[in-house]
């Protein structure tokens, strides 16, 4: 564990150095990421200039939910770069050979060889907006709330990671680029609004199949003082751990199925 932390720090420092060597490139990426985030919040604002409430949720409550959904997602975006290009880069071009030759966990290497540094901006923006919402909604937070908040952000991160890791691991069995990632990616946006506005089927899907609800909606209800989903709130860490364990198992099974191409 200690060795992996050291390695993480080294990988991160090394990559940051390379990335910042191309300053212009990084600034453009940072700027466009920022614009995308601001536009997302702008959409919520436009929506609420037309309607006063959404199923009993006020503007700042929805804003809190939206900001909570992008905070763990930002963390996930930082490390998920290689997951998107995994099939192409690591399987078809057989870069995974090199990963297997090093005495370090394969998952560690794939996640931490590249970082989408500009996505840290999403985390900071998300936290900032949540802070504003706490003040505007006059929420009384204790230290324990802040701690739970941190736990929930980590759980959200693990849930996003688990879902996309499982999908990425499919590349170990099907060499052809699988078209399943983009639709699931689009499902992320469902988590930005109260789950109760959807029909039962979608609610079930977002809770137990692709549990994005646990990464944003259920934690948020608790922080906003809504009691109807208390059990779900406390279930969140279990769901995160269960899905993560499952994803790692699928990944490890996939690694054994890896068939390196070419000579």
């Amino acid at each position, binding site marked *: 564990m200690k*060795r992996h932390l*050291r*390695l993480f720090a*080294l*990988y991160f420092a*090394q990559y940051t*150095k*390379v990335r910042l060597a191309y300053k212009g490139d990084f600034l453009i990426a940072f700027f466009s990421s920022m614009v995308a985030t601001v536009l997302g919040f702008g959409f919520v604002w436009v929506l609420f200039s037309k309607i006063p409430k959404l199923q009993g949720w006020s503007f700042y409550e929805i804003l809190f939910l939206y900001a909570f959904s992008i905070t763990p997602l930002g963390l996930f975006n930082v490390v998920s770069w290689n997951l998107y290009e995994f099939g192409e880069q690591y399987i078809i071009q057989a870069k995974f*050979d*090199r990963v*297997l*030759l*090093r*005495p*370090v*966990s394969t998952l560690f290497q794939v996640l931490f060889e590249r970082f989408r540094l500009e996505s840290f901006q999403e985390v900071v923006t998300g936290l900032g907006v949540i802070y504003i919402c706490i003040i505007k909604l006059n929420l009384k937070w204790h230290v324990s709330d802040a701690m739970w908040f941190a736990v929930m952000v980590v759980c959200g991160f693990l849930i996003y990671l688990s879902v996309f890791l499982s999908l990425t691991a499919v590349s170990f069995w099907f060499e052809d680029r699988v078209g399943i990632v983009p639709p699931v990616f689009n499902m992320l946006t469902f988590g930005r609004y109260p789950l109760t506005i959807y029909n039962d089927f979608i609610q079930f899907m977002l809770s137990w199949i692709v549990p994005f609800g646990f990464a944003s909606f259920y934690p948020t209800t608790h922080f906003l003082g809504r009691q109807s989903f208390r059990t779900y709130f406390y279930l969140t860490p279990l769901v995160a751990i269960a899905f993560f364990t499952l994803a790692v198992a699928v990944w490890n099974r996939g690694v*054994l*199925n*890896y*068939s*390196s191409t*070419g*000579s």
Partner: protein
Amino acid sequence: MPPIIDVKDLCKDFRTFRRREGVWGAVQNLFVRDRITVRAVDRVSFSIERGEMVGYIGANGAGKSTTIKMLTGILVPTSGRIIANGFVPYRDRRKYTKELGVVFGQRTQLWWDIAVVESFKLLKEIYEISDHDYRQRLGVFSEILSVKDYLYTPVRKLSLGERMRCDLAAALLHNPPLLFLDEPTIGLDVVAKDHIREFLKEVNRVSRTTVLLTTHDLSDIEELCSRIIIIDRGKTLFDGQLADMKARHARYNQVKFLLKDRSQVGRLGEVTNDGVSCNRLDELTYVMRFDRAKHSTAEVIRSLVNRLEVKDIFVEEEPIEEIVKRIYITGGLSA
């Protein structure tokens, strides 16, 4: 002491499906797939002792790389057993690779964008090399591989020869007892090749590192290995000492000679009789090739000097390429 590599009945199948051609074929592919199983490695067995340098050779697609990939733990065997350095490679991957060096001539193991020395520093952490050992080994490699000159260059800017040296240094930084090299001299010029061969000999001599290498350049084998294993279509055709292979499979000897002057050329026909062929190398240099079973070298030379005026004579063994080619063609049966 048990052998450092012990391979028994190793097999690897690849399952794939036949793709139909054209647009209609692509549509059919969506619904019906003809599965085919290709056996890339077929019941290969061998064992290698500590400190040996073994050449693993075969034509393209013979199963060399597949074997190496199973030995390094990249691929899981379909059946059979590998014990290497006391580990089952794919199962004990992390413990095994910690004591393993691998170089693929075709692609680098280093990080593409960062300076060579930064890659080395990462490897130092990955393999948990002590400061003392790291400095000492880096010093040695800088010296004999002359990597010193480009330690601060990013890998992507290195020439193939420079990159190869860095890859070798990287693979040996943790002083592994076992080293796999897959075509380590591919695409290199004569000087670079020589450099790398000398380095490998040195490493083998000093650290008793066991080396298994695949190559298409058989002069690598003659320079480095006393033992070779020949594989074709997934099966072992020959496994033994290089000298044994020559003794058992060499069929021809060669006598190269230099004529005294051009007037002798017209009389060449007199020395070529049954089983003795004669080929021109340049204006006055010719080479006679004959079956060792039918003619003795002495007899051939005698008839040559009796009939022609010759300035120089060199007796040569059949080139190893020719012998290996014959083993491929006959499937190793021409004893």
